[in-house]
């Protein structure tokens, strides 16, 4: 539990800038949700038995969580690790690089969870989700955050400069958002593309959250959760391996 001191450090900084931080994390997804939702929603009668607005809101919840987790673990994490040398200072104390990595990943997941939770609140306020089942989207958002924070952190401990992240953003995250059912049902995709989507974490997050928004129990819950957990665990293990190489070599 030594990672908590690292988590707290980031929390204290966040608390100082809370308004700016929450606004920037939410402005993008909410503009997209209401812009696209109202615009496209007017043209589309219903998707999978939901209004397009509700359908897209479930997707947005997941993609916003993914983006917050990734930005925090990569850009903010790299700034602390590389620019400010905050990690170096922490390592003089009785903490190890494993503690730092764990604290950073759980912090990024927490911040991502807050993005997801706030979008969920907006969804509820606008009457896009009415079933109490939707509360179960909260733990799912944390899990999605954990998976993307852990994978993002691999990039961070491998990065030598800021440009490194643009490959991951452009070549992995953007296409993943397109094929994972955020904007339209993933089943519409050609079979091979769908198969790729099904091994990616975002798809499984969406598969869990969307039925909950619609007031239904998702199917294949165990599989979806397992995939997200595997990404989180594998991401953590791989990050630790590279972080040890980078810091204790």
């Amino acid at each position: 539990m030594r990672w908590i001191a690292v988590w707290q450090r980031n929390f204290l900084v966040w608390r100082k800038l809370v308004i700016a931080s929450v606004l920037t994390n939410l402005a993008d997804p909410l503009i997209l949700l209401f812009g696209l939702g109202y615009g496209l929603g007017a043209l589309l009668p219903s998707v999978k038995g939901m209004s397009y607005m509700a359908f897209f809101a479930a997707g947005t919840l997941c993609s916003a969580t993914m983006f917050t987790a990734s930005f925090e673990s990569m850009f903010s994490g790299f700034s602390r690790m590389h620019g400010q040398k905050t990690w170096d200072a922490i390592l003089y104390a009785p903490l190890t690089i494993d503690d730092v990595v764990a604290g950073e990943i759980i912090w990024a997941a927490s911040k991502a969870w807050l993005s997801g939770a706030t979008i969920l609140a907006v969804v509820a306020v606008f009457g896009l989700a009415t079933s109490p089942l939707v509360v179960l989207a909260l733990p799912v958002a944390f899990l999605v955050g954990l998976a993307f924070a852990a994978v993002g952190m691999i990039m961070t401990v491998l990065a030598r400069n800021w440009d490194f992240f643009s490959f991951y953003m452009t070549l992995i995250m953007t296409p993943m958002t397109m094929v994972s059912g955020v904007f339209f049902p993933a089943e519409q995709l050609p079979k091979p593309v769908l198969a790729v989507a099904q091994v990616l974490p975002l798809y499984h997050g969406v598969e869990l959250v969307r039925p909950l928004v619609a007031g239904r129990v998702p199917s294949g819950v165990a599989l979806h959760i397992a995939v997200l957990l595997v990404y989180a665990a594998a991401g953590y293990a791989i990050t630790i391996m590279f972080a040890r190489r980078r810091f204790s070599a």
Partner: protein
Amino acid sequence: MTALRARGLRKSYATQEVVSGIDLDVAPGECFGLLGPNGAGKTTTLRLCLGLSHPDAGEIELLGEPVPARAREARRRIGVVPQFDNLDPDFTVAENLLVFGRYFSMPAAQVRAKVPELLEFAGLAGREGARISALSGGMKRRLTLARALINDPQLLVLDEPTTGLDPQARHLIWERLRRLTQEGKTLVLTTHFMEEAERLCHRLAVMDRGRLIASGSPRELIAEHIEPQVVEVHGNGFETWMQHARSLAPRVERAGDTVFAYAVDVAPIIADLRGQPELSYLHRPASLEDVFLKLTGRDLRD
């Protein structure tokens, strides 16, 4: 018990061996200086001793704990002042100390109670709420020192504690470090300032190219390695004089356009120079710097 004991330390990066078989013994309460030119392996040696980096070979015992196996436990009782400041720019002066205390699992109230005393020590009283970016280099260094004391460590490790500071700031740091030694804390520091080593350290080891090439107290090192008097000579015709000087002094060296003549008795040298109006000279007692240059050479290090 020794505060720090290392045997046969080795560490390579890629194909280059940076630390090539080092033994260290630091007694409790001692101020021990590791002296060496840039790239000698001083920082790597410190990182190995702290368990921040793992040695390829050798044994380390830090405050009775085997390192790196139990480095975490040892670091509970250790403070570190790194070569480059890494204060947390997202926090104020006081917050930097509070947050650092958490890393040692100290209760917030206990850390809070220590902050005024530490800021007083660092000469930063009244600056609790200042941003790090608003501090001068000397203030940052002092805050880093205060931060290293948050856990009331038995041993402080300081990597070039005064590099880049002006003389005023440097003297203040020296005064504080002496105070810590008087309080009974063990200090291990690296430096390439001879004055710093002479003023602060009870014992020194000179390191070059990954090896320790001499050790002892500053006086012992001077007595053992160099003639007690030096005459520095420069001016037109110094090269010709240098040839001639070899008959007057047991050791004559040249660096750029200056000749250094080392001897026990410099009277004949000075008598000779009085008859050479073209040359200017300076007579002084030999210092640690002369020992250092003799041992590590006068070539530029990068």
